């Protein structure tokens, strides 16, 4: 294992993470980088909220949490005329295995998120917002608390911000160990102080969200892109990416690479570890279908190209597996995760995730039976699409795709009671 320093350089094409050193996260540093200019601009020019939403639509920014939903469209769903409380929520509950980009935004550039949320609040008429932070990254939560304190003192968050008449108050809440709270309606339940059980939809949060009020929820990286779009324009952002896939996207590269980190390409992660060959790759966090190495190397890394290759960009968590890896054991750990994290509300997911794990466990331990692969496929098919939230699909997709692409290896385990590739711990 290589020695690692705390901070990695994000390269010249970074937007959200540009100019960072790992130490310059404070308000004064952010302002010196041109921070809070976008917020000042819309407040002094009294930009109509509709114009901001139009700019977001033009930018083709798509939700960075995993679903890839167009952000401008989502913002337009919030009823502008509604006179009661409206809420803005940031989903920083990053816990999708293979994904670790929001943590870097939060700890290295927290003010870009605060500014992005303040602009979003202005565009949608929200006076109060919450940033829900994954419970396991406590020092990052504490830094975000400090950053908020700075923003309040500088009066970028307050009543009547910069004399504009616009008021916005933002608070951090930490989770305490529940993957499901990254599901937006489970997150709302958690913000209300309850178990994180996803809600039936409809009604969607835009009409019935936090405390039953209209609420917009976006991912950290999504909000963090907003100041750049306001400063440089939606078109400039769109031109950085591909048609219908505006801007840049942070990828988290993990697994069998020399230097796991947030990079745009495999090369930036130091290439394959020990020069081995790429066997398989999950391109968008562990909930997404796995792709064989060859297919992966031929695809472009945008939402539409990866969809064409048979997977999804998801959260941009690229999990790299080399030729020494056993696909049965790899899938077993992924399946345990969904079994452990199922909230237990829907029967197909509560029972099915455990069933998947138990069958995989017996295959891995040389007790697989003929028919097990059909059984796994059947259980997966009976979970997917039959649950309140997407965790059920997330448990089923990896199983189906691993078996689809590496069926021989699974069958070998069942037939020979042992692994096709040399063992690793």
């Amino acid at each position, binding site marked *: 294992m290589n020695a690692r320093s705390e901070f990695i350089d994000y390269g010249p094409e970074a937007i959200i993470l540009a100019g960072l050193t790992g130490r310059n996260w404070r308000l004064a540093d952010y302002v010196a980088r041109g921070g809070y200019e976008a917020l000042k601009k819309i407040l002094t020019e009294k930009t109509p909220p509709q114009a901001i939403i139009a700019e977001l639509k033009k930018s083709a920014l798509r939700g960075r949490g995993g679903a890839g939903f167009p952000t401008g469209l989502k913002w337009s769903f919030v009823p502008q005329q509604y006179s009661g409380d409206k809420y803005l929520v940031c989903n920083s509950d990053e816990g999708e295995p293979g994904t670790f980009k929001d943590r870097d935004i939060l700890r290295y550039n927290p003010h870009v998120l605060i500014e992005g949320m303040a602009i979003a609040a202005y565009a949608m008429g929200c006076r109060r917002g919450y940033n829900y932070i994954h419970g396991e990254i406590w020092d990052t939560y504490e830094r975000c608390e400090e950053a908020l304190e700075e923003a309040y003192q500088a009066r970028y968050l307050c009543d009547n911000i910069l004399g504009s008449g616009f008021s916005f108050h933002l608070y951090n809440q930490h989770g305490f160990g529940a993957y499901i709270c990254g599901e937006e309606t489970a997150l709302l339940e958690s913000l209300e*102080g309850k178990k994180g059980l996803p809600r039936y939809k409809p009604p969607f949060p835009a009409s019935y969200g936090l405390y039953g009020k209209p609420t917009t929820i976006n991912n950290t990286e999504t909000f963090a892109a907003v100041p750049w779009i306001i400063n440089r324009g939606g078109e400039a952002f769109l031109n950085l990416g591909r048609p219908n896939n505006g801007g840049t996207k942070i990828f988290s590269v993990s697994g069998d690479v020399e230097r796991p980190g947030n990079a745009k390409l495999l090369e930036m992660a130091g290439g394959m570890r020990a020069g081995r060959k790429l066997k398989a790759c999950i391109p968008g966090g562990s909930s997404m279908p796995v792709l064989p190495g060859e297919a992966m190397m031929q695809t472009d890394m945008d939402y539409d190209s990866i969809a064409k290759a048979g997977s999804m960009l998801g959260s941009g968590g690229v999990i790299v597996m080399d030729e020494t890896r056993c696909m049965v054991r790899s899938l077993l750990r992924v399946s345990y995760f969904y079994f452990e994290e199922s909230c237990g509300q829907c029967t197909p997911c509560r029972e099915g995730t455990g069933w998947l794990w138990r069958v995989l466990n017996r295959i891995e331990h040389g007790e697989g039976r003929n028919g097990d692969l059909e059984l796994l496929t059947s259980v997966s098919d009976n979970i997917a699409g039959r649950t309140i939230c997407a965790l059920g699909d997330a448990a089923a997709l990896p199983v189906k795709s691993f078996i689809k692409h590496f069926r021989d290896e699974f069958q070998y385990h069942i037939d020979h009671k042992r692994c096709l590739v040399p063992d690793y711990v």
Partner: protein
Amino acid sequence: MLSPDSLKRIDREIAKYPAGRAQSAVIAALAIAQDEKGWLSTETIDFVASYLSLPSILVYEVATFYEMYNMRPVGNKITICTNLPCALHGAAQAAVHLKQSLGIDFDETTADGSFTLKQGECFGACGDAPVLLVDNKRLCSWMSNDKIDELIAELRAKAN
């Protein structure tokens, strides 16, 4: 039942929410109570419930739903992420080393009560693998066997 300092911290959390929404502070309040007490006994949960004017059962539900609450006394709690990205990058070996060094398996506490070992789900810090958490709040990154040994020695020294 909780110290004035803990109550002050809980009050600060309650103030983050609109009037009448103190229930929203329950996750933080339980974490603060656990900071002080080390774990959440029924008495502690009842106290948090009465402080927030909530039925005990609502608070108990939260305490048992979220993974990081200790529902039993624990030692220095070491939680290691063994999810796929971390497992591929040294966490599987690190977990074996931890088990051997402490002489316990996951979800066990050493006979002297000084260490508890847990298998964690994703921390959102896969780039730091092998990565572990000490008592929920201290994230330790790139934990080679040597660094694990140092950490255990440090925690032992502190306990003595």
